[in-house]
Structure formats: structure tokens, C-alpha cells
């Protein structure tokens, strides 16, 4: 028996050598596809600045191919003692619930894809976001989204025309979503070691001109048959927020089925160029 143990130990130790894994250099996919990252965040969330930094980096790294939106729902989003604003909204709350399950903040869902092997829908591991964005960008583009808009500064009226062109035949519950976001908002944010009083909040969801889960477009459309929708909205008075110069319009098309909410393509324009 002693021999058997000795042989067993040798076998165990003999299998300790392996060829190191080669990590290839990252490459930016050559595509016109635009991916949407919906980040579930909050001012009372100490880990969320790391998530925001990651999204800012991804937007810069994949310039023009990545759009971010930060959703301040109710969880860990109550204003801090030195907060100037309350970023929470009913729409953000609805979206936060719509994008569940997630285990903590920050969490992000990329193109509303349920990742294989993940029990979360919005992924709370920031380290995984980059590769999920790359995986989405490597998929073939299946639709184009174009936003045309007009903004009247005197009345603060905003009119938006969105044109969606599918590049493949689509069937299912085809939906359009329109978001308004605001950037460069300076206010308090918890970090891992402190409360940052003058943190810059970017691409923060302000409202949606559609339902939070999108407006139905059609159930079937053939490739290259364009779909158009018009929306109008009057921006609320500027109270330190709702500054049109800092605001963007995001539009995206998604196909909802019993097992998927996948976003096919997104687009973003500044309200004032």
C-alpha cells in the first residue's frame, strides 16, 4: 500500500507542468456596429466609479462603436448627505428592474444579451465588460439606426426622427427605444475610500421618450425595408441639470422574444452639436 501511495503522489506531482497560455494582443474589430452598454449604478455605490471609468475607457477605445448609459435606479442610489441632486427617476427604476437579475452594483448589460453561463443578466464583474463588448462588436451588423433631430433653444422643444433599416429579415417583437442622457454633471459620489464631492457623472439617463422597455414597431420586417418613428419632447427648465449642451439622444432597436431582448444596433447624437 505504501508503494501505491508513493506512485499516486508521483503521478500527482508529474502532472504539475503545463504550457503557459498565450494572451493575444487585443484588436479593434473593423465594423460599423454600435453596441449599447447599460450600466446599473448609483451615487451611494462605492464600486461604481470603477464601472464608470471602465465605460469611459471603452467608449474611447472603441470610438464610435460603443455608447454608454448610466442608470441610477433605486438601489444604492439615494442622494448622499452632500448631494446636490437626486438622479433617481421612475424610468431608471423600471429599467433597473427590467435588467435584473444582477447581484450588485455596478452591473452592466451589453446589448441586452444574456451571457452564456452567467446567472446575472447585467454583469456585476467590471473585468468582464471589455470582452463582452468585443464579442458583440465581432458579430455581423444586422441593422442601421439613424437619428435626425431638431432642437429649439427658445422653447426647449426637441423633435426626433429615427430611421431603422434592418439588414436581415426580422421577426419577433421589434422595438425602438429613445433615451435622453446628460453628461458633465458634477455632484457627490461614493468611492471605495471616500465620498468624492465633485465627481463628474456622465451619460446619465434622464428620461426615455418611449416606454422603458421600448415601443413596439412591428412583428415582422424584410431586410432593407426602413422603419421610421417620430418623437417630440420639451426639455424641463434648466435647474443645473437638463443642460442641452451636455445632453445626448440615444436610439436603439431591439428584438424581444421569450428568451431574448437583444439590441441589434444603437445610435447616439448630441442635442446641440
Amino acid at each position, binding site marked *: 500500500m505504501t508503494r501505491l501511495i508513493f506512485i499516486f503522489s508521483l503521478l500527482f506531482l508529474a502532472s504539475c507542468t503545463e504550457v503557459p497560455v498565450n494572451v493575444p494582443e487585443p484588436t479593434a474589430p473593423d465594423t460599423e456596429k454600435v453596441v449599447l452598454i447599460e450600466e446599473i449604478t448609483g451615487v451611494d455605490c462605492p464600486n461604481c466609479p470603477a464601472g464608470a471609468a471602465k465605460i469611459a475607457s471603452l467608449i474611447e477605445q472603441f470610438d464610435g462603436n460603443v455608447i454608454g448609459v448610466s442608470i441610477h435606479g433605486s438601489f444604492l442610489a439615494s442622494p448622499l448627505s452632500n448631494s446636490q441632486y437626486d438622479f433617481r427617476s421612475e424610468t431608471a427604476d423600471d429599467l433597473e428592474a427590467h435588467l435584473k437579475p444582477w*447581484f450588485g452594483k455596478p452591473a452592466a448589460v451589453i446589448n441586452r444579451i444574456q451571457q452564456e453561463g452567467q446567472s446575472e443578466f447585467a454583469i456585476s464583474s467590471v473585468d468582464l465588460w471589455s470582452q463582452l463588448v468585443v464579442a458583440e462588436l465581432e458579430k455581423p451588423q444586422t441593422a442601421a439606426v439613424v437619428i435626425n433631430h431638431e432642437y429649439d433653444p427658445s422653447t426647449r422643444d426637441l423633435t426626433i426622427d429615427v430611421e431603422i433599416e434592418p439588414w436581415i429579415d426580422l421577426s419577433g417583437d421589434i422595438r425602438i427605444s429613445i433615451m435622453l442622457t446628460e453628461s458633465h454633471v458634477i455632484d457627490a459620489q461614493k468611492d*471605495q475610500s471616500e465620498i468624492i464631492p465633485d465627481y463628474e457623472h456622465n451619460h446619465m439617463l434622464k428620461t426615455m421618450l418611449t416606454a422603458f422597455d421600448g415601443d413596439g414597431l412591428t412583428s415582422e420586417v424584410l431586410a432593407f425595408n426602413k422603419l421610421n418613428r417620430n418623437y417630440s419632447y420639451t426639455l424641463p427648465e434648466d435647474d443645473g441639470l437638463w443642460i442641452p449642451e451636455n445632453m445626448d439622444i440615444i436610439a436603439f432597436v431591439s428584438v424581444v422574444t421569450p428568451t431574448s431582448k437583444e439590441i441589434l444596433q444603437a445610435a447616439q447624437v448630441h442635442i446641440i452639436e
Partner: protein
Amino acid sequence: MNLRIAYLIFISVIMTTVGFGQEKGVFSGGFQSNANFFIRDSLIGAANIPQYDKQLYGAEAWLNLGYRINGYSAGIRFDLFNNSNLLDPNSSYTDQGIGRWYIAKQLDKLGITVGYIYNQIGAGSIFRAYEQRPQLIDNALVGAQLTYDVAEEWELTAFTGRQRDLFNSFDSVLKGAKFEGYKSFGDSIRVNFAPGVGFVNRTLDDVTMNKVIGIVQDYLGDERFEPTYNVYLGSIYNTMTYKNFSWYVEAAYKSPDTFRDPTLLKTEFNGSRSFGRFHRQEGTMFYTSLSYAKNKFGITVEGKRTENFNFRVDPTLTRNFGQVNFLPPMNRVNTYRLTARYSPATQDLSELATQVDIKYRIMKNLNVNLNFSNITDLSTDLLLYREIYFETIYKIKRKWRMTGGVQLLTYNQEIYEVKPDVPLVETIVPYFDIQYKIDKKKSIRFESQYMLIGDDEKAGAKQDFGDWVFGLIEYNVAPHWSLVVSDMYNIVPGKSSPVDENGDKLSLHYPRFDIFYNNKSNRYGLSYIKQVEGIVCTGGICRLEPAFSGMRFSVNSTF
């Protein structure tokens, strides 16, 4: 596994063994269930999860069945979760199925087990497959295990499999072995040894490795590293007893492994830097416990040093998911509501901990207990947790039992609860517990604690939730009934206490009413609960639980 297949296996074992007819089979089982009725209370933070907003109800149930005959044993467990908040206190989980099955057979010196296996090596520092229902931890090994009795009191165990992941299993493969025994040097020398040695290997699956590669691909310059599929762990441990001394020691080593260190800075593509980066490092853990007990006196001294000893089936998993090992906690297990309010979760990357526990019987009816524990960060010496606990128990005949004491505690809330910009929480908790036996059947117990907490000077308020007072009355009528009424009152609100519409801090009550009924081996409980947010630890594993408001019905049965 498909319910039908598992059922067929279980029935097959029973039917097969019935034929032997040499031994009477032993059938056993257990049932446990909780039904929660959620009552929204946004003031205390019991809101904004589906259970409070729309589902209103959640439940969990487990049914265990086991059968033993002629060296065979088999078991099966049905698990059910309906809108349960156990997996994630901030979310809802629904599923059901076979949570566990196993078949085991002892063939002379050889033992064979297949299915869902619970086991551990030493104190668990390199491998522990166990179940902890209050936090829905069940990391059974789904695989096969062999044991072999090498000699009398010397056993070799080898296993291979994958870790359970709710009703699936993780794809990484675990294998390991341990060799344990016992050696006595007779009554004259009075020295006994119980040594052991263990090895564990984890091999990542391709999907997990691709995730790791994707993470490393995103790293720049020196932050990059070459991940490996395999990690190897070894531990050596021994319990030596000599007269009134008992000395346990366990040392463990982990070969370089990929894990996330929240203290490391990661450089983003745009040059910004944020905390939290994966890297590949080896790890060590050392734990020892020395006890002495004689007559009226007993003392236990413990020490633990942990460095980079995080070990999971998938390095990208967080919280309590996918943990392969278990590092024993180094603080006193407190049971009173306020003394247990701040408990330290084991820090598996960097921790240096000591604990001393002294028990002394002054008189036949008077005992004292003194406990001291101190936990610091290994690399920075940052104080994480310190507790000084004194308790005395005085009995008057068989009628009265009086317990009183005080706890002085320092708790690093910034580290344990990731709450930035908060000072070390410092509390003093005096308490008493008086039990009076009215007659042979009836008894009554009073319990009270007061938590005096330090000031948060930056916030201009008491730390955390401020001062608390807790009172409890328990009335027992043996053998069936137990009634408990308690209230935890935020007598001096603190920084985190809820506020009213005007922003004034509120002094809230958190009452609880329980009725328990025992009938033979069945226990039924009905409770109304309002519970403040706090750290909940079970079996040394801790997590931050949000506030709870609602009714709970529970059933526990064994048969």
C-alpha cells in the same frame, strides 16, 4: 439531473438492497421549509426588491431522504426556491429540482461514493465541500470519491468532480486526495497524534479560461500576466494531544493562481486608473490552535496568517460563489442580537488574526469567560477587528441562571461592508440574560443589551445607525410551546439611520414576535419580523443582509 433519473437511481438502490435481506435497512429523512410574507417598509429599507414590490411572498424548502443497508447508503434531496431572497438578498430566485443525490458502498477496506459529496481536508483551508442553508451555500462536489483503510485508523481518500452550482455544476474540474490517521503512544506517555496531508488541483475549463484571457487582454504593460489552467494546493495538519494540552496546526500552500485583488490599481485604455485587478500569485495560510484545560480552568490560543489564499472554481466569481476552500473565522461566535451585530468576514487575501479564550470556574455555580480577538491586515497592519468580551454565568440551584457581561468592539466597516469614509466603528455592549424555571415545565427568560457606539465626527452624528437597546422575553412551556417577544430600538439614531421628510433622524423600533411549537421531531415557527440591515454570519461565512420586514412561517422535521 433529471428528477426522474435521480428518483430511479434512489429507488433502484432501495429495491436492490431489499433483496439481500441480511440487515434491516435504516430509512431517514428531514424536511425544512421557510415561507416569507414580505411587508414593504421603505422607511427601514425593506423595499425595491421584487418580493416587496410585487411578489409579496417567497419560500424555500428542502426534503432529504436517506437509506442505509448492508454497507450501501443512498440519499436524495429535493430543493425548492420560489421568489426566494436567500441566493441574493436583493433579488428573487425561483427554481426547483434535485439538489443532491448520492450512492455509497463500503467494500471491505474500500469505500465508494458517487453523486453529490460533502467532505473537507483538515480545517478546510484547501478544500471544503459543505452546505450552509441560511446563505444558500452548497458547494458539494459532484463526482466520485474513494476511501481506503490503509491500516487501522489510517485512511486514504481521493476524489474528483466538479463543484455544484445550484442545479447545475461549474465546468472546472477539481481533484484531490488526503491521507489522515491517528497514532497513540499509549497510556504511559499519553501523547497522541492525528496527522494529515492533503492535495487539491483545479483545472479551469475553456470557457472560464477564455474569460480570464479576455480580462488579461484588456490589461496594459506590466499589468499583463500569463494565466494557467491548473492550480495546486497542499496542506499538512496535525492534532497533538498531551495530557491536558491539545495543539492543532495546519499549514497550506497554493501554487500561483489567478485572482482579483481589490487593492491593486488597473490602468484603463484611456490612462485612468481604478482599484481592482487580476494577477497571478502564490498563496499561503497558516493556522494554529493551542488548548489547555484542567479542572476549573481552560484556555485556547489561536493564530492565523493568510496571504493570497482565495481559491475558487472560477476566478471571476465574486461573493460566496464558487469558493472551494474555507478559512476558519477568528472571532468569538456571538449569539446575542447586539453583540453579534458587527462580525468580521474572513479576509482571504491578507489577514493576521489572533484569539485567546479563557474559561474559569470560580465556584461550582459561578463561571467566567474572557475572550480577546484581534484581526489586522497582513500587509498594512490596518486594524480590521478587535473584540474584548467578558461573560459571567451564575446559577442559583436549578431555578435561576443569570448571565451578564460586556463586549468592547472595534470594527472596520470600511473594509467589511465597503462603506467609504467611515471611521472604525467602536461599540460597548453591556448585556444580561436571566432565566427562571417556574416549574418543571415552564420557564421564562429575559434578555437585554445596550449598544453604545462612537461618534462619526465628519458626519456630526453617531457612527452607523447609532445607539441601540434590545429587550427580549421568552416564555417556554415544555415540551411544546415557546413564545418570544423582542424589540431592537434605535434609541440614539446615527449617521445611517432613516430620516423623515424634514431630514430629521428617526428612532425606529424593530420588533419581533415568534411562536414555536414542537411536536416530537417536528418544529413549527411563526414570526413577525422587522430587522435592521446588518452583517449576518453563519458558520464563519458573512454577508451584508438588507433590512427585512414581514412574516415568516418555518417548519423543521426529522424522521
